[in-house]
């Protein structure tokens, strides 16, 4: 394992400290317990938005803390959801009296730890609402699984809910718009190579030189099937099929098309993927009116990508376009 780290045990602490030092205009960080908040938190009268989860998916979530998006992010150990303490501390730090929305990716650990934190916050008389993001169509949403996983679609939920909170929506309204995004966003990913968790020191899984994993999770969890490497266009078709079938997008729909890099994939490849995905959508009469391409929900250095499609309407488009000022996403300000 070759990584730019000191003691693997200190990866998250040192990275969060560096993040705080690099973006003092946007955030301030707490190291004990570890969380990242807007430098101007709490915003009186504004709904606070807190997300979090295991580290290793950067810029998710810390890179999205700032004006128009998250009020706080709570990073756990690498690929391990945070414990309730820092979630509670972050929730208190951003509470401006209008309640706090927790945006949680659908993993048992994340759900349980945020649940405990929400209970504790309620005991402190902070109103907390929770939304669970579960956009990954690689996993069947049935009684026989823990439900679909939350992956890159989370970024879109955070952006749009953040814009709603920023324009002054109350907690119910912010939660409602977040649920609307969750209802209309679907994703699926592919891995070409595994990633190496610093404390583990070995790859999270192994793939032969000519194999790829379709439907990979963002922690290197195995996906739907392992196949031989194919041309980029064929891989795109494999991912887009289940996405478009899961939530029938129909001709005339407007969508946001988001090609997310898993961390180690060169940008040229992401744009090759974008080209094909846009082509397929156009072929179905689906209009791509907003786009996002880049490393936004990563799995450390994993090579691969995911495709996310969000069905847009006027409200969601306006909220997407609203100003945002975070380390990883910034426009209009």
């Amino acid at each position, binding site marked *: 394992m070759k990584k730019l780290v000191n003691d693997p045990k200190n990866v998250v602490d040192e990275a969060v400290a560096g993040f705080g030092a690099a973006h003092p205009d946007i955030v301030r960080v707490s190291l004990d317990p570890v969380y990242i908040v807007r430098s101007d938190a709490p915003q009186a009268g504004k709904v606070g938005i807190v997300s979090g989860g295991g580290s290793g998916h950067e810029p998710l979530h810390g890179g999205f803390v700032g004006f128009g998006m998250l009020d706080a992010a709570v990073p756990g*150990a690498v690929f391990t959801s945070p414990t*309730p303490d820092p979630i509670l501390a972050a929730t208190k730090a951003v509470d401006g009296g209008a309640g706090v929305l927790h945006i949680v990716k659908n993993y048992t*650990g994340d759900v349980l730890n945020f649940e405990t934190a929400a209970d504790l916050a309620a005991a402190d008389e902070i109103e907390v609402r929770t939304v669970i993001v579960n956009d990954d169509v690689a996993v069947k949403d049935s009684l026989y699984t*823990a439900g679909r996983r939350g992956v890159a679609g989370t970024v879109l939920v955070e952006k749009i809910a953040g814009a709603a909170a920023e324009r002054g929506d109350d907690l119910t309204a912010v939660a409602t718009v977040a649920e609307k995004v969750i209802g209309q966003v679907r994703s699926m990913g592919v891995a070409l190579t595994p990633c190496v968790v610093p404390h583990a020191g070995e790859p999270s899984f192994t793939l032969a030189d000519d194999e790829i994993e379709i439907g990979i999770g963002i*922690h290197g*969890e195995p996906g739907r099937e392992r196949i031989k490497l194919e041309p980029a266009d064929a891989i795109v078709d494999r991912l887009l099929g289940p996405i478009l079938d899961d939530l029938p997008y129909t001709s005339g729909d407007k969508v946001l098309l988001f090609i997310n890099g898993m961390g180690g994939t060169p940008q040229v490849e992401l744009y090759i993927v974008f080209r094909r995905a846009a082509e397929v959508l156009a072929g179905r009469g689906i209009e791509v009116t907003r786009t996002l391409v880049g490393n936004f929900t990563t799995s450390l250095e994993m090579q691969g990508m995911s495709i996310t499609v969000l069905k847009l309407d006027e409200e969601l488009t306006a909220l997407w376009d609203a100003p945002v000022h975070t380390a990883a996403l910034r426009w209009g300000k």
Partner: protein
Amino acid sequence: MSLDVAWAQAWIRSSAQVLAEHRAELNTLDREIGDGDHGENMDRGFQAVLPKLDGLADGATPGDAFKTLASTLISTVGGAAGPLYGTAYLKAATAVTGVAELDGAAVVALLTAARDGIVLRGKAESGDKTMIDAWTPAVDAAEQAHAAGADPALVLAAAADAAEAGAVSTEPLVARKGRASYLGERAIGHRDPGAQSTALILRSGADAAASS
């Protein structure tokens, strides 16, 4: 041999040692059907509780030790295991509140409360390929041993035996909870890491009872 606070402390210390020794093994089990951190998570939590054990007040009960363990696990482990084991020990502590020395019935109550706590939080059923597949056989075996008149240490030993068998029994299963559930048929042939850590922990408890 009495199941007092010294025993509870010995159990927790020995669990910490055993989990540290099996850290890599639990990581590997979790890498195969999850995300590879279960050994790391358990080790972090049990190491964190060690310094706190010495700080237990005079006259503390086993329940106090378990409560300390519960809150430490909740605040240091994270992931699925943190809240699940945390709730388990919290409910276990409540089940034996104020009891200075556990008898066989108390051991059964403790194990039952722990298992029920996990089910309350995680909603897993038997056969879902989770730690419940170690806990429920352990509870059942403890009940039977106690009903058959076994002393508390032997009740614990029966629970540990059953938990070990339960962990093994997860191997042929498809998972319906936790990360392994994403794998479908591909989970078959792999042992559930949480069931394995449960077996290790219950064995520590039995060993601590046998030598205390």
